């Protein structure tokens, strides 16, 4: 197990290096620079800026310098926002995104799994049809529609939730629902279909034939097997939800991290693009590793030492 994790961490570093290299080359092959704007700067000032940020060096040197700083934990300085480092952006934005994200994740798991199970147990009943209808709507309706709707009805008309900002538990309601909507619907559907599949298995029949209680048959024998496909989805889902969403942060005026990523691309803010991409990638790859480790705990047929 420990050997496997060490091996995987090494391969994570290699993956990140590849992602970094690709991002760096793509980023620099797009025309324009951080200092391109409608009003062109005087050549001397532009030259001075290029020198300040090292943009006049050969690309490979820029890349190596960046990596050198990265290894020392310095994610670089924004080329657009004066005096703001990427480390600051993450340390300020991530807690907001992560707090809202973790509530959303808890909502997804705490509702999606049991509702999916109940829906499967009551297959083709009225409850099942209602759940599946809502879940289909949840998958089809994009988060910005849900977000805007929440904002309008509960914020504007009913005044139950604040119009925006990050202040108190009420400010969680809107973003959490908008953020959880799709994944909640998806997890519910996945759990239901996976449960239906497992309930048809011979070992469930064996468990019933042996007179085990309903709770044991469903809660012990069926659930653990049915969770395997759900875990596959949930790992990367958690990574993406915790790192925030540009759209939802925009709608609810949240000071999260999601907005930086989108802004950095439109602004050609080279260091921010690189660092945030690598940061997201690292979290994502790490979540995949956690999923793989979780598999080994759920399913003994999966051996990690190979």
């Amino acid at each position: 197990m420990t050997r496997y994790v060490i091996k995987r961490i090494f391969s994570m570093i290699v993956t990140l290096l590849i992602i970094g290299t690709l991002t760096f080359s793509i980023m620099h092959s797009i025309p324009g620079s951080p200092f391109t704007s409608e009003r062109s700067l005087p050549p001397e000032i532009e030259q001075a800026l290029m020198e300040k940020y090292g943009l006049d060096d050969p690309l490979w040197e820029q890349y190596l310098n960046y990596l050198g700083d990265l290894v020392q934990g310095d994610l670089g300085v924004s080329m657009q926002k004066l005096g703001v480092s990427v480390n600051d952006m993450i340390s300020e934005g991530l807690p907001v995104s992560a707090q809202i994200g973790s509530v959303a994740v808890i909502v997804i798991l705490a509702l999606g799994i049991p509702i999916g199970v109940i829906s499967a147990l009551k297959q083709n009943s009225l409850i099942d049809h209602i759940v599946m209808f809502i879940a289909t709507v949840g998958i089809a309706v994009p988060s910005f529609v849900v977000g805007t709707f929440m904002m309008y009805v509960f914020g504007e008309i009913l005044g139950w939730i604040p119009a925006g900002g990050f202040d108190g538990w009420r400010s969680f309601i809107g973003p959490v629902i908008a953020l959880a909507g799709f994944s909640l619907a998806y997890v519910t559907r996945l759990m239901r279909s996976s449960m239906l599949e497992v309930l048809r298995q011979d070992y469930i029949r064996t468990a019933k034939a042996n007179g085990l209680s309903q709770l044991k048959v469903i809660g012990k024998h069926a659930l653990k097997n049915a969770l395997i496909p759900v875990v596959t989805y949930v790992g990367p889902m958690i990574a993406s939800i915790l790192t925030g969403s540009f759209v939802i942060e925009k709608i609810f005026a949240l000071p999260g991290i999601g907005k930086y990523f989108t802004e950095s691309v439109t602004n050609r803010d080279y260091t921010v693009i690189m660092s945030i991409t690598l940061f997201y990638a690292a979290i994502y790859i790490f979540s995949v590793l956690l999923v793989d480790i979780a598999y080994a705990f759920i399913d003994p047929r999966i051996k990690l030492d190979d």
Partner: protein
Amino acid sequence: MGKEKILEVKGLETSFFTHLGEVQSVRSVSFDIHKGEVVGIVGESGSGKSITCMSIMKLLQHPGKIKHGEVIFKGEDLVKKSPKEMRKIQGDEISMIFQDPMTALNPVYTIGNQMTEVIRAHKKISQKEAEKIAIKMLEAVGIPSPEQRLKNYPHEFSGGMRQRAIIAMALSCEPELLIADEPTTALDVTIQAQILDLLKGLREKLDTSIIFITHDLGVIAELCDKVIVMYGGMVMEEASVVDLFKEPKNPYTIGLLKSVPNPETLTKQTLVPIAGSPPDMLNPPKGCAFCNRCEYAVQKCLVEVPKLYDVGKDHKSRCHLYHPDTPNEVKIKREVI
């Protein structure tokens, strides 16, 4: 067999109510099982043998339903019991083992976990004591070093070992009746023989009654005291194992026996299959289920379901040819098989 009856199935009818209509899988099946008796149920796929046993155990899946009949076990009608009451009987007094040992155990729990869980569901004992019983049972079914084996997962067992473990699990609460639904079909021949020997030995040791479902007449001859031949959801013939092989009294049984290879005559004779295919249970024939494939069929067979006639001591056959008024020359002359 002068022993007490432990199970009486009376007029059992089970149907599946599908969107196409009612599939009548089991049609008025009756039989008795005595203590310590091994009863074989034979028949081709779809003859209703598995569904009969699933009905006894009340393990029918939706849309299956027991329409009619009684299943008297130790004086009580199981059909009337609630799922909760049934759970006390399932795995404790009546156990069932299934065809495919590769899929019948939960892959994510150890053998020990699954065995002790069943024991503790029926007996108020500690985990330690349950483990002791599990070890004893694994030993009884011939699994070496059972203490270690308890900690194994099903995938660490071979097919034959899994079936042994399943049998051990099914017998761990010393049931009075074991229903074995083709337990050897998915295994290779040498393992089949071992499992049959095991069941024979256990039956002698524990005096458990066994219902053995199979389509293999060889297995029947090997293991059973009594045989029930099913076709089209009905009992076609019921006889002691000796009578059935010596003097089959139903055209369907005769057909079945003819389609089995006989080592003595194999080189000279070709196997005779039963022509045609089984009836559609969505629209079962009005008369005898076998009439369209039967070489002895007469007009009456097409329109009237025959009764189960007594044709000898503990020997019954569902065939119009055994109606008391049927002229003797028409009655089946058993051919050389």
